[in-house]
């Protein structure tokens, strides 16, 4: 992401907009500046802000005069008055930031927007998590903190050592050099992203061990971790497996996503595909 300094009027509207707090006004040049190391290329400033195309010279003059008289501005808080943000073309490894941070960019590996896969959202069609199994979505960096791949690797290595199965269609799994060890590509380890999701599956017996590992590793990595934990309901639509286990472990939840079982395979397969 770039701020065009010929256009920027240092109004500072973009500063609170950035989810990573990566924008600040450099008082030496009186322009907004992006801290490239903190920026995750999520595009919120560029895409999320409304824009005007006002004359920068005129706006700077007005701001100087009003500032001198200590007038209080009441500009719209989400508007860049001079359309100063520009998206530049990114190359690897920096491109990985955008892929994992900008929700309107599609993951090439999964074909869906977002940081994970279809998870249990399509479990009625794909049956990724069957009866007696537990699916985990272990997410790093969200909400609002961000994470580096080196921290994610710390978790994946520990989980791999526990013998978990990584979801093969997950973007993080695609970045592993070895799914048995959990190591990620070395060229991306220092890249920071808004969030990423590691997806694994175990039997119900391993829930406690996996969650203990996740929370223990989280003590060592400087970010937030959010865990989603899923299972298939029984024939009556009840979960008499995972919910009681979580209760036994003293783990509580307020919200859930429920697959209502309305999906089915409808694609027809042609003779050549067969």
């Amino acid at each position, binding site marked *: 992401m770039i701020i065009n300094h010929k256009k920027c009027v240092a109004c500072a509207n973009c500063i*609170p*907009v950035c*989810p990573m*707090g990566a924008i600040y006004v450099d008082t030496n040049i009186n322009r907004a500046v992006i801290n490239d190391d903190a920026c995750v290329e*999520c595009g919120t400033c560029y895409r*999320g802000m409304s*824009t*005007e*195309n006002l004359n920068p010279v005129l706006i700077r003059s007005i701001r100087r005069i009003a500032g001198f008289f200590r007038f209080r501005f009441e500009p*719209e*808080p*989400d508007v860049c008055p001079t*359309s100063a943000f520009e998206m530049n073309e990114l190359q690897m490894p920096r491109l990985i930031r955008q892929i994992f941070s900008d*929700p309107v960019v599609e993951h090439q590996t999964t074909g869906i*927007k977002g940081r*994970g896969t*279809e*998870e*249990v*959202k*399509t*479990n*009625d*069609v794909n049956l990724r*998590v069957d009866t007696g199994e537990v699916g985990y*979505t272990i997410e790093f960096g*969200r*909400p*609002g*903190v961000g994470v580096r791949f080196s921290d994610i690797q710390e978790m994946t290595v520990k989980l791999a050592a526990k013998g978990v199965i990584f979801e093969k269609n997950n973007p993080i799994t695609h970045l592993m050099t070895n799914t048995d060890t959990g190591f990620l590509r070395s060229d991306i380890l220092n890249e920071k992203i*808004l969030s990423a*999701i590691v997806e694994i599956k175990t039997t119900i017996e391993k829930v406690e061990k996996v969650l203990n590992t996740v929370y223990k590793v989280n*003590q060592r990595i400087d970010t*937030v971790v*959010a*865990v*989603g934990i899923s*299972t298939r*309901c029984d024939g*009556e*639509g009840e*979960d008499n497996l995972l919910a009681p286990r*979580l209760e036994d472990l003293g783990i*509580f*939840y*307020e*919200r*859930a*996503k*429920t*697959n*209502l*079982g*309305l*999906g*089915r*395979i*409808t*694609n*027809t397969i042609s003779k050549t595909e067969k």
Partner: protein
Amino acid sequence: MTNTLHRYGKADSFNDDYIIFAIPSKGKNDKDCIPKLKEFLKICARHNPVNMGNGQRGTLTPEKDLGPSSHWNRSDQPDFESIIDGVTKPGTVSAVFGDASDATECLQEIIEADFGISVNISTSVENAKEAARGCGIRRHSVEYALAVSDPHDHLPNSQILSLSTMCGHGMVSFNLARKMLDMVREGRRTPEQAVATLTRFCPCGVYNPERAKRLLLEACREQK
């Protein structure tokens, strides 16, 4: 964790927050699914949604190339038609409801339409059970959102978290949520204006403006 599971709050804080979404599965039921996804959204639009999204945009979007006078005439009216028309490829489409009966009636109609595409509901566990029961269907699978682990104290207070996490993708920053809350407290913006600003930043349309307004008003009352 899925976007809508990031919403922060106790279970009863989701009594005005029901998200119903449809998602085709790649290679399984994504062929010719566009008309079905559009029809799904059309059904949702008939049951008083507070927001809708097609993966690319929500009902309130950033306004580009505003004129100098537009500050006084900004639109805060949801545009459902554009969401429906904007479905051009397979992906998640969603609608947010602020009322249990609207969500349940919508779900009933979706079940009758029988699209063959996976449909999920995201709200509190009990609300989802009730909705499924009300429609006479059995839940297939469930994903619970466990509390966010934050051993290094990165997260802000619960008011900011509740407002910010309604954009599950994290595009509503903590600082923007804090700024809008402060602007409402200071009387510099109405709750409706603040909510419209926050909603514009959520590109997939799952931000719940009704819940956000309630949270803003509650936060202002607590301050007083």
